[in-house]
């Protein structure tokens, strides 16, 4: 008793999180500037570079010169080794920046010297300081040549080893998605915007006031210590068909590789937000569509109403997979494939039953038809709200779970939907001890891999 920390039962207080966004190298600096342009409160943005000229062009107050002694402010010359050495020279400084921080975003363009070499050092230091570290990186254009690509791949592996999660967006892929005549520079800014959206979306997910049902702990459960490559996307839609459209947009997002990222995910975090008109039926519709895309993913869902969203419905999604996906990212999907957002379910064709080095993923296969699943598991699910009729005002929007559950409903066959709950701990305060949420499975917190 003496050592168990508790929070008041009635109002679990959301801890004020300390979050920092770092841009490393030229590309990283540009992405962070872009994020900054869209009004971020309470987040410190810091740009790191070895190149004093590039640094001078960044319109942000917090700029740090890496490896001045080593490189004399002249940049890393496209050599990741020099980027790394520069960061190591200033490691104490980086440590100072990361101390006491809950979460760190690191943006970098892979292929050059600074982002590729110094970025992973920063990720490691952030982790060592106890922060959750998420990296948002780009891969070079094909035209930049094989050397850069090789360096970039190497850097990606290092990021994956150092950070909790890495979201990777190849420039080439974005290039193919937009108009053929677009210039490289314009492509940059599109990519930068996508990355900025990613950072913003996750930031909102964990900080948005009133968003009580998905929190930092949930995010940690999905990404912490997994060293996985994560995909991330956010989409918004309005109008009567917004539940359907928002998912279509989501799946069209290049960050999700046409939905394939969902099929391969072993952990999925979905956050829905809408104005007061958001109904349980819509939440279910969105979740059902997303669920159809996933195979064995551990699903965490949260939904909230936010007055000022009005008619808008936004969905933010983080998909995390353990298996290395680098090769596919580099060689893979042709634009046709990306553009044609196949009807949900068809995407499964491209899913491999890969040897996934992660607990359970290799053992658990979903039964063939959903209805049997629903039927079998129905008796074990008690979910307030799913029993009741779907009212448009639906106040029961706040649920989450370590995994998805199915609920059959005989009277409304169209409502055989995935409904998720926080499970047995939904109505109780979290069991915290020394800041650790003991409700999160021990093996997850211990990062035990099963093979």
């Amino acid at each position, binding site marked *: *008793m*003496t*050592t*168990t920390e*508790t929070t008041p*039962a009635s109002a679990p207080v959301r801890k004020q999180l300390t979050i920092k966004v770092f841009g490393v190298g030229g590309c990283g600096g540009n992405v962070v500037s872009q994020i900054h342009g869209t009004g971020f409160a309470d987040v410190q943005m810091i740009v790191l570079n070895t190149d004093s000229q590039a640094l001078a062009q960044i319109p942000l107050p917090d700029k740090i010169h890496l490896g001045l002694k080593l490189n004399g402010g002249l940049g890393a010359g496209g050599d990741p080794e020099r980027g790394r050495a520069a960061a190591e020279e200033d490691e104490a400084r980086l440590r100072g920046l990361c101390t006491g921080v809950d979460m760190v975003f690191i943006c970098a363009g892979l292929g050059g010297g600074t982002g590729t070499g110094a970025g992973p050092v920063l990720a490691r230091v952030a982790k060592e300081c106890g922060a959750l570290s998420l990296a948002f990186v780009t891969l070079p254009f094909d035209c930049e040549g094989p050397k850069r690509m090789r360096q970039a791949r190497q850097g990606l592996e290092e990021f994956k080893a150092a950070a909790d999660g890495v979201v990777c967006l190849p420039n080439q892929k974005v290039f193919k998605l937009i108009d053929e005549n677009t210039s490289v520079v314009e492509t940059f800014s599109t990519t930068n915007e996508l990355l900025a959206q990613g950072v913003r979306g996750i930031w909102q997910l964990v900080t948005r006031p009133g968003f009580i049902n998905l929190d930092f702990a949930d995010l940690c459960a999905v990404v912490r210590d997994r060293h996985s490559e994560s995909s991330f996307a956010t989409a918004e839609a309005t109008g009567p068909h917004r539940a359907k459209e928002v998912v279509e947009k989501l799946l069209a997002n290049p960050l999700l590789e046409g939905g394939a990222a969902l099929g391969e995910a072993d952990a999925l975090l979905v956050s829905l937000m809408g104005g007061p008109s958001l109904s349980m039926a819509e939440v279910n519709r969105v979740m059902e569509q997303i669920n159809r895309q996933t195979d*064995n993913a*551990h699903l965490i869902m949260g939904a909230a109403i936010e007055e000022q969203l009005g008619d808008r419905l936004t969905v933010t999604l983080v998909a995390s997979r353990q298996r290395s996906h680098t090769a596919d990212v580099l060689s893979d999907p042709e634009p046709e494939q990306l553009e044609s957002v196949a009807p949900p379910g068809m995407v499964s064709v491209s899913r491999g039953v890969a040897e996934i080095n992660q*607990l*359970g993923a290799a*053992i*658990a*296969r979903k*039964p063939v038809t959903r209805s*049997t699943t629903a*039927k*079998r*598991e129905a*008796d*074990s*699910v008690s979910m307030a709200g799913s029993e009741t009729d779907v009212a448009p005002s639906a106040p029961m929007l706040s649920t989450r779970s*370590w*995994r998805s*559950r199915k609920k059959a409903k005989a009277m409304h066959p169209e409502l055989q939907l995935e409904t998720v709950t926080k*499970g*047995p*701990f*939904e*109505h*109780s*305060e979290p*069991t915290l*001890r020394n800041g650790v949420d*003991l*409700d999160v*499975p*021990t*093996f*997850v917190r*211990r990062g*035990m891999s*099963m093979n």
Partner: protein
Amino acid sequence: MLNLLFPEKTTVIVGLEIGTAKVAAAVGEVTESGGVNVIGIGQSASRGVRKGEVVNADLTAEDVRNAIVEAERSADVEIASVYLSVTGGHLTSLNTHGVFTAASDDHEISQPDVNEVLANAKVFNRPSENTVLHAIRQHFTLNGQAGIADPVGMLGGKLELDMHVVHGVTTRLQNPVRVVKGLNLEVEELVFSGLASSLALLDNEQKQMGVLVVDLGAGTTEYVVYADGVIKHTGILAVGGDHVTNDLSYGLRMAPARAAMLKQEHGAATIGGAAGQTLTLTSENGFPDRRVNLEHLRRIMVARLEETMQLIDEDIGEQGFHDQLRAGVCLCGGGARIPGIDKLAEEVFGLSATLGRANAVGGLRSATDDPELATAVGLVKYGAIRQKGLRRIGLVGKLKHLAGSLGIF
């Protein structure tokens, strides 16, 4: 408690645990010689409790009613009042110290002196929203001589008292009380469930030698440390079998009900020979449905159980109790049924571990041998000790007998 079937001299005492997995009521009778026999048990699945605390009063009221009705039938008594166990993450415990100084060293310690030192020891910092659940006397120290059970009549100038105090958030302590009162039952006293369990399991010798009791429930895990015959330390973790089930449900990707079933059928607290073994599960229509790696199942379970015990071990280690626990570790609660749990406890605590049975009471074997009923049965024991004390007060008027011989009060 009015019942014509019972001879005048026996008293009926009822213990009620509103647990996370089940509600259990134990009916006991106290014989003239002071022994306690369990004469009836009532149980019901618990639907409105999480982590040891009531979250749905309506469901819980129904479950309590069912358990009480069954207990009444089983013991053939009418139940009017209960000793009620409480637990939850809001409970806090600490040891306090009180001092009384007399004018001279040859002062004869009187009852008022003892009362003063008692009052003194009860002064400690606690949040205003908390209520003291227990203030348990450990021992007196007179002029530096420790381990005195009753100082009245002894000579000394400085009397000190060590106490173990358990307190909790008042509103949260009241939740189960409200449910019980809503059923027209009186609550005689609230008792920390870990304390109740320990009373069922332990004999005086174990308390004297030093022992750690761990109650592995569905929503909470309570622990109690005895040494030199008194309670030295208590604690509770809001972690239990539900967490094991949830970990499995997440890790093996299956519905919680199925995970709970697998846990009970194939679970263990050791990896054992599970390496490379696979279970084939069948769907409800009898077809092989999916395969589960038994080693993964065990590793997920072991990780949680080991962690839970490690957290307890750290806590009692910080207080320096390890070398005082010569009687080892005694396990109860549903978690005590997990195969190999005693081995795991031995490993984690570095002490011998046994599965406890309710040695301190007689009566129905089915009740005293059931690890899940330790709390309810222990509550009966608690009631018996209390009522004996109260009777003595009536007869002799001496408060000191409340100290009992069982290391409480």
